[in-house]
């Protein structure tokens, strides 16, 4: 047995999956079952007490989902992962392990609009207080740290404008503050950026986007980097203190460097309940096998489309970190040398009306609220994903009224450019 590190594409196909022990099935079977039989009462007790590895009930774990979990953990370079029903569910489950009512977490202001809403409104009702910082000004994170800060949350490539975050600089702030850095890696996928290599302690994804990749299944995942020491200062009692729901087990002591993933499963998923359907796990796993191929093509297409738009007379500006003139180009070269992602925005000289007109004339691009599909997608964030923000917040998060967001698919780039050309021209 050689200790050789296989490449990313090999892991994308193989990690976590092995022929089925019972049938020899080579594709991962869909274990579409709610529950699993126990061998005997002692086996049941061991499983419920977290003393044995095994399956109990699909809200806590499922063999199809487990393959997905190990696969993404391997691709991200983490110690373990937990799949959940959506990207948003991943965010709730992560923060539930870290936050007590009255605690704070710092979040980058440039985030997916749905996350801004979740943090501002839903989390407020739990007593979890978000403090916003500007990812273009690292000192704003330092200034936001207080004794109640429990975590820092950023996106690697930020939705909607595809801006690149300086993960290492923010991880330094997190380390100094003694709190974990959570990185939403949805828009980059581990093919472009592995945040753990840059200092992230926890990575979350909406699997709904590039990992699943085909626009057919919702899902989310949490990856534990195994890097954070939860025992210091009693700040994270879910991990460091005896858990009454498990007869006094201390999770960090028992599970070591994958204790956070276990906490998310046995305290978060078990009690909050956002389990991923095994069918969705199967669809997403199938998608991940081609992640490297799709992601490269999508980045290459996105660059070609961005270059075309940058040269078009109806376009005021293009925000794509893959363009040498872009503000984030140096960060893109550092963090995402294979490509700057496939989601970006541009603004039209004709403003809001021109944006609405463009969207209505496009024939290949689909007008919908998603990204990371094989198909190319278009949306006007100001009237949709970011519509609940006020105007100032829209502009701050990169979704002003004249802005159009594209998510570039795997079609032929000539056809995408021709579609944009006819829609912009006429």
């Amino acid at each position: 047995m050689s200790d050789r590190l296989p490449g990313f594409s090999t892991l994308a196909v193989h990690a976590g999956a092995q022929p089925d022990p019972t049938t020899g099935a080579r594709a991962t079977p869909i274990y579409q079952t709610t529950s699993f039989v126990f061998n005997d009462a002692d086996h049941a007790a061991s499983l419920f007490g977290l003393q044995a590895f095994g399956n109990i009930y699909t809200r806590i774990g499922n063999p199809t989902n487990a393959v997905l979990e190990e696969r993404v953990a391997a691709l991200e370079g983490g110690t373990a992962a937990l799949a959940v029903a959506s990207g948003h569910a991943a965010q709730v489950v992560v923060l539930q392990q870290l936050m007590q009512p009255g605690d704070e977490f710092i979040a980058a202001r440039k985030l997916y609009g749905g996350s801004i809403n979740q943090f501002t409104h839903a989390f407020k009702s739990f007593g979890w207080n978000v403090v916003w910082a500007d990812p273009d000004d690292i000192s704003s994170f330092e200034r936001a740290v207080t004794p109640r800060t429990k975590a820092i949350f950023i996106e690697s490539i930020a939705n909607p404008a595809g801006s690149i975050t300086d993960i290492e600089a923010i991880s330094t702030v997190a380390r100094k503050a003694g709190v974990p850095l959570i990185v939403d890696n949805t828009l980059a996928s581990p093919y472009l950026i592995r945040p753990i290599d840059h200092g992230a302690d926890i990575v979350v994804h909406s699997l709904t986007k590039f990992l699943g990749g085909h626009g057919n299944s919702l899902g989310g995942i949490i990856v534990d980097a195994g890097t954070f020491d939860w025992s210091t200062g009693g700040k994270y009692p879910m991990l460091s203190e005896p858990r009454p729901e498990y007869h006094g087990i201390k999770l960090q002591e028992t599970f070591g460097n994958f204790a956070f993933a276990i906490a998310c499963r046995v305290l978060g998923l078990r009690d909050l309940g956002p389990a991923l359907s095994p069918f969705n796990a199967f669809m997403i796993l199938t998608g991940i096998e081609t992640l490297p191929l799709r992601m490269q093509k999508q980045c290459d297409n996105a660059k070609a489309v961005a270059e075309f738009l940058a040269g078009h007379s109806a376009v005021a500006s293009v925000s794509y970190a893959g363009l040498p003139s872009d503000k984030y180009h140096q960060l893109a070269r550092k963090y995402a040398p294979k490509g700057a992602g496939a989601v970006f925005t541009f603004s039209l000289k004709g403003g809001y009306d021109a944006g609405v007109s463009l969207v209505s004339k496009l024939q290949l691009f689909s007008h919908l609220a998603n990204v990371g599909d094989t198909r190319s997608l278009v949306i006007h964030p100001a009237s949709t994903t970011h519509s609940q923000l006020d105007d100032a917040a829209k502009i701050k998060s990169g979704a002003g009224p004249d802005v159009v967001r594209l998510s570039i698919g795997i079609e032929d780039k000539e056809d995408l450019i021709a579609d944009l050309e006819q829609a912009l021209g006429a």
Partner: protein
Amino acid sequence: MNHDAYPDNYIRGILNSVKSIAMVGASPVNVRPSYFAFKYLAQRGYDMIPVNPGHVGKELLGKPFVASLSDIGRPIDMIDIFRNSSHILPVVEEALTLDPLPKVIWMQLGARDDVAAAKAESVGIKVVMNRCPKIEYGRLSSEISWMGVNSRTLSSKRAPAPTQGMRLSLNRMSVGGGDTAASDRAAKNKSEQS
């Protein structure tokens, strides 16, 4: 041996070769990690001996407790120490008086004593620190994948369905060693700070 990052082959070699394991600090309380690990290793076919002076006269899963390593009275392959780092050295010193010597001294997750390790290694004993044999066995066999853990191994072979009491194959292709690069780095930074 670099105790910050063990190659899989080192751990695999140990778990494939040892048969008897004396667990120092084994607890009869069924929510303690030592109890979990004892039970799991016994179920996977290891000959387990619980060592704990506070429980002599009692049994752990049918095995009688002994007070100390020297009370075992027969050769043992591996000593698994479930004690804090500050209590490791005397246990290792006692182990070094055994005849024959144990082949392996293993210190549990969270426990590390480089001085004790060097003493044991100087007489040819293999040492593992800050790891759990249950987790490592589960990882190398990929049984732990049920919990979404990155086993850091791959295999295109069909494995038999695990049953009670069965030894599992640990001979899967390793993907780069015992732990992830990031978690190894973090452990190293921590041990340098303390």
